[in-house]
């Protein structure tokens, strides 16, 4: 279906293949929940020649568990993610991140694909998905491929996707016993973007971490992983407090924040250390993790 309206066409493909074809047109922009694109069009920040709405492609709305992972269709809404019993039970960091975005109306239509594809560093989902070691599945003229979050997002509101590529799903590994936590710091209004956000996953066997991942959002051009979190592997509980504090300082050193209304760069860097330590302590099960 093609509808022309002034100089913008509005396409509603019914399949991924048709969407890829439509996105091949010069100036085409993919649209899902529209909470960001609708805002940018309304504000005159974006004047696409073609809008390709992904809301009528059945393949993109499937959420299913499959061998060792959960495949979440790209147009799954944040409200659906936050309310999904299996998502909440298996990857609470993702459910909490989804429940934190914007307000009720945003979550009702905004999608997981949009949340990663928009590549806004203040978004809640990228750090959570990075900590969870998720893969973003993409379809385009060159075929299908899978990318880690930090491979997909290569800078401030920028991705490596070709213009004709569309995000089809996000695949999250499910590992028995893995804990995951997401915390965001919003000193202003609860529905604001986070000043900083921190996500962690931990596998703990016999009271000792065997794998730990930490990711930070809001404190750089894109969410980033803190590889020093791996140093928590094998650390006994008695040393968690000092070890997590060291990792949190590494997280702060890796931050590359900017001054804006959410805080000064120096303030955000200090908050990275605070919230990285809190999310690690909570994830490892230490007492007194939260104020």
């Amino acid at each position, binding site marked *: 279906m093609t509808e022309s309206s002034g100089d913008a066409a509005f396409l509603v493909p019914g399949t991924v293949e048709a969407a890829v074809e439509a996105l091949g047109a010069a100036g085409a922009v993919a649209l899902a929940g529209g*909470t960001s694109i609708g*805002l940018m069009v309304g504000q005159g920040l974006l004047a696409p020649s073609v809008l390709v709405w992904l809301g009528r492609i059945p393949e993109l709305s499937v959420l299913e568990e499959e061998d060792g992972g959960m495949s979440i269709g790209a147009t799954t809404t944040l409200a659906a993610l936050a309310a999904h019993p299996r998502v909440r039970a298996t990857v609470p960091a993702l459910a909490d991140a989804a429940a934190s975005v914007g307000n009720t*109306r945003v979550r*009702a239509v905004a999608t997981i694909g949009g949340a990663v594809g928009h590549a806004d560093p203040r978004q809640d989902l990228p750090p959570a998905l990075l900590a969870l070691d998720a893969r973003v599945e993409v379809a385009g003229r060159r075929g299908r491929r899978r990318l880690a979050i930090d491979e997909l997002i290569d800078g401030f509101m920028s991705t490596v996707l070709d213009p004709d590529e569309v995000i089809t799903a996000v695949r999250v590994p499910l590992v028995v016993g893995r804990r995951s936590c997401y915390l965001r710091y919003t000193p202003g*209004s609860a529905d604001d973007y986070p000043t900083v956000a921190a996500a962690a996953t931990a596998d703990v066997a016999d009271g000792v971490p065997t794998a730990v991942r930490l990711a930070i959002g809001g404190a750089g051009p894109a969410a980033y992983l803190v590889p020093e979190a791996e140093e928590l592997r094998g650390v006994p509980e008695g040393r968690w407090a000092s070890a997590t504090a060291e990792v949190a300082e590494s997280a702060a050193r890796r931050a590359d924040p900017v001054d804006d209304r959410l805080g000064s760069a120096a303030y955000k860097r200090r908050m990275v250390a605070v919230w990285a330590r809190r999310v690690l302590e909570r994830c490892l099960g230490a007492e007194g993790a939260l104020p």
Partner: protein
Amino acid sequence: MKMHARVNGSPFVAEVPATSSLLEVLRGAGLTGTKEGCRIGVCGVCTVLVDNRPVSSCLYLAGCADGADIWTVEGMAEHAPSVVDAFVECEGMQCGICTPGQIVAVASMGPDVRDERDVRHYLSGNLCRCTGYGTIVEAALDAQARRRDEVAPA
């Protein structure tokens, strides 16, 4: 584009640009109960239901509303009468600007929204500058209780 939808239960057809906002389309058709506030999806006065989901109609593109089942405050007496009754009886309003959005937002609440904390979280994106929220929250809790009673009469 020619937008075909159902609005408040009746067939609705409008010739509009696909990139116009649903808010413009509705108000242009005379449904001025839905208000324009911040125009950036923050304040909630333009809340309408699209396929039973609450959306900021100021951001929602007409193209995405094609084929949808849309309800506005004008249809709430039919779609969610217990919510309207609750707002009237609890006086969940003062100047009235935010009221259409508050009523529609409450009408979109699922049964999982039960206590005051749930209500305040759910409505945190519907701003009110008069009431201090007390009577709005009261109305929302009352509406949810009425709807529970309708589902499972005592």
